[in-house]
């Protein structure tokens, strides 16, 4: 299917600016600080990813689910809804949209298992019926805009197809095997692709976890930059291809090894070789290659900056530790005031209570004063 991003609902309705984003969160911000809210967002994105892993769902589907979750909360408040139902619902709808449908039952069961085993939650577990019902509201608030564009594709386009066989392994990993889209890439010359070495490529997906805590740890390298961006608000603010390019850029910066290798351009098979239309062209320097893309580097720089601040934030808190290699870090960092999963869960309960109190005291929810929250900008 030709997916023209510029005509998609994603571009026309769901790329918003920071002000709109802030407005949509006014209510929640009354009960939590911006940082806490950001941590809560990371917490839930992690939760969706973890549920996806438990169900053996591909990364792209998980990514779609996370985007749905974020879009839903542009129009709703965390403190007024039950995010523990929204989480499985987003995943459920995403599996249908991405043509890998799952039944309610396994989702509900697995959600329950996860809540109990991983989070020790003591709540009313979402049953199939509540998920079915939530699906309804979720779809409505998404305005039935169901197709989401992800940065994975940019990565595949720019980094060539040579390693298409590498791939799917882990469920958190992005999709390989995705053929380049035909059609115009307005932001690139379309000439040549960067060829990363296997390791380097997986790294564009992955983040050097160590840099979050300033300790290089090779074994933690298979976190994924793009997957990481889903923990922030990037998918609401920036075009997916820009996020993709920012991820590539970061990979080049972080992976010092492969950068050094590129300098020995004599051995293109080892470093980043470039495959261009005429194979005997000298392989361009990756820096030149990135510079040749017709994109705004101010924006890229900003995204990179924000990814780094996301890591800093993430590193300061201990959300989603259970499934990562950072568990060991927990001990070394006791005594710092970051929020852990348990703190987040407690905070959520507090927020709900506070909101209820407000309700009783007649404090109106900002979102529902107006019939609808400010529509994401740029109507067609």
């Amino acid at each position, binding site marked *: *299917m*030709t*997916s023209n991003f510029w*005509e*998609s*609902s994603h571009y026309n309705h769901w790329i918003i600016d920071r002000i709109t984003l802030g407005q949509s969160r006014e209510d929640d911000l009354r009960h939590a600080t911006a940082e806490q809210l950001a941590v809560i967002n990371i917490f839930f994105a992690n939760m969706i990813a973890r549920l996806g892993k438990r169900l053996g769902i*591909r990364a*792209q589907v998980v990514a779609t689910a996370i985007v749905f979750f974020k879009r839903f909360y542009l129009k*709703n408040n965390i403190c*007024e*809804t*039950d995010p523990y*139902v929204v989480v499985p619902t987003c995943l*459920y*709808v995403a599996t*249908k*949209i*991405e*043509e*890998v*449908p799952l*039944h*309610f039952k396994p989702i509900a069961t697995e959600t329950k298992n996860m809540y109990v085993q991983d989070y020790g939650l003591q709540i009313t577990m979402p049953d*199939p*019926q*509540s*998920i*079915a*019902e*939530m*699906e*309804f*509201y979720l*779809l*409505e608030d998404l*305005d*039935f*805009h*169901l*197709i989401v564009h992800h940065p*994975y*594709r940019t990565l595949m386009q720019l980094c060539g197809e040579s390693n298409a066989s590498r791939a799917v392994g882990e469920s958190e990993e992005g*999709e390989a*095997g*995705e*053929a*380049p*889209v*035909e059609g115009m890439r307005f932001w690139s010359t379309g000439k040549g692709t960067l060829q990363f070495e296997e390791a380097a490529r997986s790294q564009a997906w992955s983040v050097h976890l160590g840099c979050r805590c300033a300790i290089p740890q090779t074994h933690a390298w298979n976190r994924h930059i793009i997957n990481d961006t889903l923990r922030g608000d990037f998918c609401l603010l920036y075009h997916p291809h820009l996020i993709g390019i920012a991820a590539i850029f970061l990979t080049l910066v972080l992976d010092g090894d492969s950068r050094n290798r590129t300098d020995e351009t004599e051995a293109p098979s080892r470093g980043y070789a470039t495959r261009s239309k005429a194979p005997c062209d000298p392989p361009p320097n990756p820096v030149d290659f990135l510079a040749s893309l017709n994109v705004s580097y101010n924006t890229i720089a900003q995204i990179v900056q924000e990814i780094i601040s996301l890591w800093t934030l993430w590193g300061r808190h201990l959300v989603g530790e259970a499934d990562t290699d950072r568990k060991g870090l927990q001990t070394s960092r006791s005594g710092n005031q970051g929020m852990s999963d348990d703190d987040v869960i407690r905070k959520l309960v507090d927020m709900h209570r506070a909101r209820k109190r407000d*309700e009783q005291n007649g404090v109106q929810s900002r979102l*529902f004063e107006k019939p609808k929250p400010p529509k994401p900008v740029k109507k067609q």
Partner: protein
Amino acid sequence: MLNKLGEGTFGEVHKARSHVTGQLVALKRILMHEEREGIPITALREVKLLKKLKHPNVVPLVDMVVTKGAQTRMDYWSTKDSKGDIYMVFPYMDHDLAGLLENKSVRLSPGQIKLYMQQLLEGTDYLHRNNILHRDMKAANLLISNAGVLQIADFGLARPGHSKLAWDGIDIRKTRYTNCVVTRWYRPPELLLGETNYGFAIDMWGVGCVMGEMWLRRPMFCGSSDLNQLEKIWSLCGTPTEDNMPGWGLLPGCEGVKNWPRQERTVRQNFELSMLLLDPNRRITAAQALDHEWFWNDPMPADPKTYVD
């Protein structure tokens, strides 16, 4: 809401007038067949595809309407009986082709048939270029306005097709489809024989049937069962041989039909039958059909501007 128009694959269709614009619209209600599985994936597919498509000969999805059961948003997850309905909103079209053909007082000139065929093929070509299999091509799913515009409707069975193009990352090459699609009278022989790895040609068979139907004023092959359907097809197009339908003997459904008396193709090659070739690989594509000289011979396709119903 004015009156019920009919029932589709998974929804009733109602005629209604919009409060906002005053225009007539068709509302298609999404039926919840299986409460247990939430909104049917077919409905979501239809919405997803229609939101993406924009072509004068493909029915546009104007809006989605959700009627609420729940009173307030605050308590919507606490009440259990709060399910509302979901409607898809389409512009109201005056006729569907099946109804038009049944109506004895409507006469179609060859020029008009060409006009409709051209639009049908334009729409089909658009779908196929966008890698979508409609999978339910039939006269009843072709809507026609009084201004002579034809639109392809009902994407309840539509799916992204196999092709080199990626469908948002799903490795569709491995996907096998169900062969239980397409209303029987418009079902091509390869589906009747149990092929699960089919392509755009199945839609072209339907287009061919629709075209024949416009000439005959009745469906071309009104089979009473799948076997009978095949018999009717063989009687027009000849029984399959390795020559006219390579590989047919390997299809799972061919056992019962292997020993049928040989029949020769009774009709000589013409434009219509190039869409009704048994071999799906030789069947004409929408793009090729549009280039066919048939559209450039007299009588030329009628001009929709001069069209008065």
